[in-house]
């Protein structure tokens, strides 16, 4: 900075001039320029306020990062297909009750040890342990035995047939960890392409490329996941050059980015909607719920909240679940305020209806959507007040205790199964936070669960979706647009149908 610039600044801000002399000590400078591209800083909106033990970690944000460190016997690829990981192959018995996994030869843990059948068994057992009630992976309560056949073969037997079993095996949750490790909470040792180096609370998580990875090696040597907690200063962080990549960006922020960034578009793989508590008297009435569906103008919501980006939805399934997704359900209730008024009048709410929408305040997208919904409902004589709550209050009063009237949130899938999206709407499901009770649905869901044939099962799950849509179980809105900002210095980002960031595929741009 020369003298002339200094003078200009002094003209801009008087007090600045007083401090220029002091700022001589500043040596931060421009960092990005001198760095080699074998280092990438990935912004994460939230720290992993969690154990780093993948079995115990519950938050999606934690699994998203740990995906790079841990693998199960199988793992998902970017198309949602399950590919072999620690296991190189598996076979399933005719009755679907016995799975035999053949372990890949010479898979190394990050601590240098080779993965053994014992490690696999202890990991699966840890996830299936029922001593604390439900096992860590609830579906693993189905496991009746885990046996070591030989050093490279593990046999798992099930009590009942489960078509989704391999999906559970492939989740980060069922990661293979060294047997007998005691400090997994703070020192994660996995088999993935990246090795955990260090963490600093609310600051960052550092990983480095694991050189002895069995598969295709990662391109970038060092990865820092940097916590960028304030959504409003995110853009400054990106444009300022502190962060090279950031996923889950709201559209409004993605639009502010400089030309140094490529903005990749995808969807967030969740079902955003106004979820209605069916125990709240007006919402027990199907007509009221339908009226709300008619009164909500999804086009406008998308326009306002995300500039038209995102996918409109009509039921509890998002498009990346290609197998189950039914796009036509989106048309079940097209915007029709007149019809909404009629339905409300029929249901006895001609003079209006008022309720409160509880929204978790840490999700600006949901708060924004709630605001637009509330405004749209005014037109049909419905008064919706918004009450923001912080996440834990939401978890406790809305999700656990179900003390609410309506809430706008996004529901995602923890693994690649239809069950992940649909089981919660069974009348007696633990996580049926909307208190949905529909015998027809329960029957359809149970039938689907019991069905052996894959195609028939898919149809039955789709039947469930149709019931949810037609019954207007909730006011389904959209699968939010997912914006990923990636510095032009890098390329190779891949969207997954799951909530993960696969850094191993990212490479410096010039290596293309």
């Amino acid at each position, binding site marked *: 900075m020369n003298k002339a610039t200094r003078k200009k600044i002094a003209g801009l801000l008087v007090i600045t001039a007083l401090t220029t002399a002091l700022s001589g000590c500043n040596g931060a400078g421009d960092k990005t320029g001198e760095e080699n591209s074998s280092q990438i800083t990935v912004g994460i909106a939230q720290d992993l306020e969690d154990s780093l033990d993948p079995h115990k970690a519950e938050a999606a944000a934690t699994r998203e990062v740990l995906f790079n460190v841990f693998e199960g016997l199988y793992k998902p690829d970017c198309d949602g297909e399950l590919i072999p990981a620690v296991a190189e192959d598996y076979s399933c018995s005719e009755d679907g009750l016995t799975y035999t996994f053949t372990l890949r030869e010479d898979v190394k843990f990050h601590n240098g040890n080779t993965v053994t059948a014992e490690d696999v068994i202890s990991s699966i057992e840890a996830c299936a342990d029922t001593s604390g009630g439900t096992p860590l992976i609830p579906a693993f309560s189905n496991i009746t035995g885990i046996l070591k056949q030989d050093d490279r073969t593990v046999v798992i037997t099930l009590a009942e047939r489960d078509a989704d079993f391999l999906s559970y095996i492939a989740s980060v949750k069922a990661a293979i960890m060294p047997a007998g490790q005691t400090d997994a909470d703070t020192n994660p040792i996995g088999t993935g392409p990246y090795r955990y180096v260090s963490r600093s609370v609310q600051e960052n998580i550092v990983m480095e490329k694991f050189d002895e990875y069995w598969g295709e090696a990662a391109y970038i040597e060092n990865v820092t996941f940097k916590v960028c907690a304030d959504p*409003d200063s995110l853009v400054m962080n990106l444009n300022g050059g502190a962060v090279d990549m950031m996923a889950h960006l709201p559209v409004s922020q993605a639009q502010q980015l400089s030309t140094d960034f490529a903005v990749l578009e995808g969807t967030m793989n969740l079902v955003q909607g106004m979820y209605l508590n069916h125990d709240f008297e007006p919402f027990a009435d199907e007509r009221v719920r339908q009226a709300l569906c008619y009164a909500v103008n999804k086009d406008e919501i998308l326009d*306002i909240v995300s500039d038209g980006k995102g996918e409109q939805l009509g039921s509890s399934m998002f498009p990346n679940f290609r197998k189950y997704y039914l796009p036509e359900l989106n048309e079940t209730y097209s915007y029709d305020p007149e019809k909404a008024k009629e339905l409300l009048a029929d249901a006895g709410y001609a003079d209006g209806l008022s309720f409160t929408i509880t929204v978790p305040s840490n999700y600006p997208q949901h708060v924004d959507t709630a605001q637009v919904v509330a405004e749209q409902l005014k037109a049909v004589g419905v008064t919706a007040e*918004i009450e*923001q709550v912080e996440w834990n209050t939401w978890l406790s009063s809305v999700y656990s205790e179900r003390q609410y009237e309506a809430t706008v949130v996004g529901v995602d899938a923890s693994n690649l199964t239809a069950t992940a999206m649909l089981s919660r709407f069974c009348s007696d499901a633990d996580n049926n936070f909307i208190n949905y009770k529909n015998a027809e649905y329960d029957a359809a869901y149970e039938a689907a669960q019991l069905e052996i044939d894959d195609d028939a099962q898919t149809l039955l799950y789709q039947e469930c979706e149709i019931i949810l849509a037609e019954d207007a179980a909730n006011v389904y809105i959209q699968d939010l647009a997912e914006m990923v900002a990636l510095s032009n210095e890098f390329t190779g980002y891949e969207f997954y149908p799951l909530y993960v960031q696969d850094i191993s595929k990212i490479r410096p741009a010039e290596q293309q």
Partner: protein
Amino acid sequence: MKRQSTTFWIGAVLAGMVLLFLLVGCFWTPYDPEAMNASMKLAGVSSAHPMGCDAFGRDVLSRVMDGGRSTLLVAGGTVLLGAGLGIVIGAITGYFGGLADTILMRIVDALLAFPSVLLALVVVALLGTGEMNVILSLGIAFAPSFARVVRGEFLRSRYLGYVQAARLAGASHFRILFVHILPNIRSVLISALLIGFNNAVLSEAALSYLGIGVQPPQASLGSMLADAQTYLFTEPLLCIFPGAVLILLVLGFGLMGDGLRTGRK
């Protein structure tokens, strides 16, 4: 008392203008401050929308008028409650001293270290959200700093001749505290109130971040500023307008307080 300095009048005119602007907002705004219009999203300044539109296509002028009112209510309420509590605590501790002083000042110390966010969460948990509860929790959080300022003044005043004279004139302790001494420390109080006002606006915005402040779609200057931060690069005017109203209001009050103090030596 009769003649105030020019500083006072400049401040009074500034504050008066902003207050008038907000007062009009109570009865009339050019548009419904909550009405959205997708086609007007982030529309710039025009004759139809003198301050442009926000990300929801809502008229910023209307929202500033409406939000200024709620900010004035919340921040004003907060400083009044905080100052009220602070004055009572500070007056008692400063004037009586002794055990009451020791105990109350320890509580003040404790409150100073107690995060206002946690306090606000407790209030919200017990009483629910809403402007009044924001005022309550922030008011409690603000009381300690007022108490400290006020305590010093009362400590100084308690030995002054006119206080002794008041006692001999049969005034009760209560009367001495609030009728005799209080008017004499107003200049200190006024500047403390102003600083408190500004902090209250901010704290309210910070609470809105956590969802325990003023609830949307109701506007407040603090939350408008926070929202506008996202668009700092492309739509800087979005934060200029609410920011300017806020700064002018506080500046106006500040100059008034300054003028009051220097108007009489």
